[in-house]
């Protein structure tokens, strides 16, 4: 067992974990942050995407012990005190989620992506989404929502509510 200390969604967390515990399972089962979804558990579906030290990563392809000392943010952090962040609101307006399983991972990936590519082409957004499997909504409204969000002047650079 290994002791780890990290910051999750602004809260200091100290836990003792087995080295083999995945970051996803740590977030969901230890911390109760079930917004991070577990799909394929081998880095293909993208539903477990969270931020570690500001970069979007696959929570299933990282061990909780590797996040020791890091700052982790999950989809629960996006809206802050608001109901929805501007990005989440764009998803709502465009009906960019149906069952919602893939949504948290896509949102976390987009926040990182837009930090680096603030004005992406439709093709660039589609390419980025290749790492996120959506099996029911369909990608067209998801792409529309992301492009609407990046085009909006009100979008905060971090994708979070300010």
């Amino acid at each position, binding site marked *: 067992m290994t002791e780890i200390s990290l910051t999750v969604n602004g809260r200091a967390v100290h836990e003792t974990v087995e080295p083999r515990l995945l970051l996803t399972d740590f977030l969901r089962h230890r911390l109760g942050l079930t917004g991070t979804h577990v799909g394929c558990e081998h880095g293909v579906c993208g539903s477990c995407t969270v931020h570690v030290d500001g970069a979007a990563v696959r929570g299933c392809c990282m061990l909780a012990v590797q996040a020791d000392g890091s700052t982790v943010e999950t989809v629960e952090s996006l809206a802050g005190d608001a109901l929805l962040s501007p990005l989440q609101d764009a998803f709502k307006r465009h009906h960019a989620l149906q069952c919602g399983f893939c949504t948290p991972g896509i949102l976390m990936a987009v926040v990182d992506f837009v930090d680096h590519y603030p004005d992406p082409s439709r093709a660039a957004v589609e*390419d980025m989404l290749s790492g996120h499997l959506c099996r029911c909504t369909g990608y067209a409204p998801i792409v529309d929502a992301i492009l609407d969000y990046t085009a909006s002047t009100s979008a905060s650079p971090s994708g979070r509510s300010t």
Partner: protein
Amino acid sequence: MKPVAFDFVRAESLEEALAALAEGGEDAKPIAGGQSLVPALNMRLVRPTLLVDLNRAGLDGIEANGEVRIGATARQAAVERDPRAHPLLREALPFVGHYVTRNRGTVGGSVAHADGSAEIPVCLAALDGTIVIAGPTGRREVAPPDFFVTHYLTTLHAGELVVATVWPQAAPGEGWAFEELALRAGDYALSMVAVVLRRDGGAARDVRVVAGAVTDRPTLLVEAAAALEGVEVTAAAASAAGAAAAASVEPPGSIHASCDYLRSITATLVERAALRAWARSA
């Protein structure tokens, strides 16, 4: 899908990492970005007794000094955005996994993992780069043909680590291009090709054509390069190079693509890459 139990050491330096690997013996594994290793752990295809984490061992630096030395744990995303990295590598990196996996995946990890369908090793071979290795008995430097053996197998010895790769910087008159075809963006490639050449007057010189995915390791296609060497890269010359490339590979077919189809794709990719590399060399 959960990994087997293992011990974990976070190495704070290269020396700590090498010592931990030596102590862990045969069943110890280093972990860098983990984008191939953790899926394999989750599926229990790999059952190490000890993981040695290299992420905080100070191996992630990128230095440019005539050539570019990329520390083993430099993230693929960081190199993709670094203007000092060779443009061939930067052109190929968007084909590596997905946007999010490149935030964690490393350049050195991809080289050490030696997947026959990996883009980074193909670029390293095309640019005649160097793999820097550290081990219990010191350091050594190896050229790609002396490193990649076959799928997932390299000439790394037990207890050794890839600590960096060294890449040339693009030279004036140099042309380069990377081409790949996969069934879907981010999937394992069906075929990939890198072409590097130098324009000397009206002719291509020092042509290197390297294929991946249709071979078990980055493979120099000597006949395809010979078809371009010393000539102007016209559509006819590029087509001849493609035909030579197709004849020199023999990929095993699969449910997705027959051997003949993979050869045909490879010919097309060589043709396109040769023409683009030539156009860039102007």
